[in-house]
């Protein structure tokens, strides 16, 4: 696929939709992750994302292969942003097309859940009064 899976640039949902769109697909589900203004009672100012690119590529390659096995008629694309993101900016997008909506919803949900558990990306939360690596000590 031509789409870069890790990018420093703003994510353009149109590009992902175009990537998975095809005549046999009757539905496309998009999950868009956005920087939230609060976390565990803290007022979040920024999230700083960093990624191990080779590890991300291999992780997403495993995830997308598994998607093909579990939902053979689907087509999926994923893009994750790195760098410093402000509240409201898009950090990740997952899009899945399929002949019918059920498998598109299921696959999109599975992809984002699996990405969060397996793909080597980190984020530091910059909040009012300090900063913390998300997931540390959790």
């Amino acid at each position: 696929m031509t789409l870069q899976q890790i990018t420093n640039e703003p994510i353009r949902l149109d590009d992902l939709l175009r990537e998975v769109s095809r005549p046999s697909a009757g539905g496309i589900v998009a999950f868009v992750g956005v920087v939230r203004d609060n976390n565990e009672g803290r007022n979040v100012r920024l999230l700083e994302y960093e990624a191990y690119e080779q590890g991300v590529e291999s992780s997403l390659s495993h995830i997308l292969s598994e998607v093909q096995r579990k939902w053979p008629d689907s087509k999926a694309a994923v893009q994750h942003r790195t760098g410093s993101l402000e509240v409201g900016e898009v950090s990740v997008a997952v899009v899945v097309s399929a002949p019918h909506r059920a498998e598109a919803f299921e696959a999109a949900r599975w992809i984002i859940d699996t990405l969060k558990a397996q793909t080597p990306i980190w984020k530091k939360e910059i909040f009012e009064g300090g900063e913390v690596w998300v997931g540390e000590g959790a």
Partner: protein
Amino acid sequence: MIEPREDNLNIKLLFFAQFREATGERSREVSIVPGTDASTLLASLVRECPRLQGLASSVRFMVNGEYADKDSVLLDGDEVVFLPPIAGG
């Protein structure tokens, strides 16, 4: 990290997140004796950077971009990453 010897192996460490901050480096070349595994290398780094101690038990390992067990024996030319808890999304 370990004294140079003829049969030592050269590997590359990449540092991210807390590891990058604690070492002040993005990567490092190290020389190891044959048979060294990933967790031994981590223990050696933790001795150098004690502030990583609290993370050590939750670290996962990648070798050449793929998840690897903590007792994976490292080979010459391997690229090793210690992963503190990930938080994509």
